[in-house]
């Protein structure tokens, strides 16, 4: 684990999000350290996806701030946050359906690098292929995104997120609905990404996977943090067990 003295990569302070009268996130504060593998768990409807929608900018928040690399990004639109280095995958994959896998990644290369420098087509193709190779999708580069299997779609979402050159990658249930061998495959992929200096927040229902993956875990229930600590600490917590098993 990185030393405690490091400034946080992402600092969420007193974040509150309401939908009408329903409070989805209630005064949530948490720091994510650089290089950390952070697991986010909680029962259905506890606010996990809402939290990452607030981090990635899809939702506006009522109160609180999101600070990323010492910059307040609370009011920035999603595409600017992506360019700053926050990438995400979606719980239900959202590929660009009219494009091939390679073209899906090309959108990220075209728009998210943000340097504005002209990069020759051949070089961009190389970058793209190296990402696809790392994800085990190199044979699918020129296949339409609609022709992919579930696990391939998950990998393509991660590949597209990687093509934005993120510092923070948020994986929203990238393993839901996969077979156990596929879960291992995706888990290994995420592990290898974490080894390359990318901080990862993983939302997951598959407890075994998230416990194996995380340095630190946080459990949400009804929009509040009920436990945060090492995986073992969180799982031993009385309130976490109640939230999952009922009282």
């Amino acid at each position, binding site marked *: 684990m990185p030393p405690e003295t490091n400034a946080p990569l992402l600092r969420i302070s007193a974040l509150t999000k309401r939908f009408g009268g329903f409070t989805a996130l209630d005064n949530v504060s948490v720091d994510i350290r650089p290089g950390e593998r952070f697991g986010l768990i909680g029962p259905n409807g506890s606010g996990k996806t809402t939290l990452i929608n607030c981090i990635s900018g899809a939702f506006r928040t009522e109160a609180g701030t999101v600070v990323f690399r010492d910059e307040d990004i609370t009011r920035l639109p999603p595409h*600017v946050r992506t360019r700053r280095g926050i990438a995400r995958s979606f719980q239900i994959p959202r590929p660009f*359906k009219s494009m091939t896998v390679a073209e899906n990644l090309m959108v990220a290369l075209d728009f998210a690098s943000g340097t504005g420098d002209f990069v020759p087509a051949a070089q961009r193709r190389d970058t793209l292929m190296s990402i696809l190779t790392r994800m085990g999708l190199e044979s699918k580069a020129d296949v339409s995104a609609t022709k992919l299997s579930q696990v391939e779609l998950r990998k393509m979402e991660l590949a597209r997120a990687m093509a934005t050159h993120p510092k923070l990658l948020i994986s929203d249930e990238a393993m839901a609905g996969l077979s156990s061998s596929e879960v291992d495959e995706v888990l290994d992929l995420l592990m290898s990404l974490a080894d390359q200096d990318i901080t990862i927040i993983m939302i997951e229902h598959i407890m075994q996977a998230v416990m194996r993956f995380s340095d630190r875990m946080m459990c949400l229930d009804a929009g509040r943090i009920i436990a945060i600590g090492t995986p073992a600490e969180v799982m031993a917590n009385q309130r976490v067990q109640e939230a999952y098993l009922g009282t």
Partner: protein
Amino acid sequence: MSRNSLFFWIGAIFFLVAALLMTQVIGNEYPFFACYVILQFIVLSVSWSILGGYAGYVNFGTSAFFGMGVYTAVFLFKVAGAPLAVQIAAAAAVGALMGFALGLLTLRMQGIFFSIATIALTIVIETSITNWRYVGGAAGIQMQRPPVIAPFNSYVQMLFFVQALLVVLAIGTSRYIQNSWMGHGLQALKDDELAAECTGVPTLRLKLLACVISGALMCAAGAPAAMYLQYADPSSAFNLNYSVTVLAMSLIGGTAHWAGPVVGAILLGTTQQLLTVTISSEINLLVLGVMLVLFVVAAPEGIIGLIRRVRPKRNEGEG
């Protein structure tokens, strides 16, 4: 310049030369009168597709932009006797501003809400012009054509050539957009707006840009219409038929490629002109409706989609 671009621009120059030659060789005015309308619809459909096709934001406000083009020309001509080129350039500027304003107000709405807002725009502008006495109000206004400029023999022939220039401008713009980063961004946001945004695509800015370009071209296409008819009135300049016809032409041709609206406009425009001469102008809309239904059912991706499906895909994913 790639080989494709080279062929494209050679084709464009060939087209313009042919149009110019026609005006020198054919003495009868009628072919120009008819072809002008087809060319006008090509410009309108191609420009409509920049927002409606590439971005998937269905704009029912074509008539608003077209009508504003007509009335920009009318106003400038009445106030200062401005020449045709100035009328068209000013109309393009007005269209760009209008597109910007419309976009700012409505592009945060998605899908059907955007479309409804564009219909409202047409009605608001038409009502304003109807109540503006200076440009003729509800009764309309007569336009006296100035003397024709050499080498053209008649004003209609000149308008025909001007509209041909606008066709090349519109298609060139649309083709450039399709192949550029802007086209890729629009395609991404058409597929999935949130995913595009989270992949770094500035969706609102791209949609605004598309709306501005599309609006400018549609307005420019309308500017010569006042001189073409030598008359302008609000109910025909802002006629909803323009919106419907242009939508039908784009959808029937196919909106995923710049050539789609061109094919659609030529096909439908020619059919309409032939029907107007041989049967009656009323049957136009019936034919339009029937063709639209047929295509929506049988070929939802238009003629371009049909061609792509029939022809085996070569070098898929490249270029």
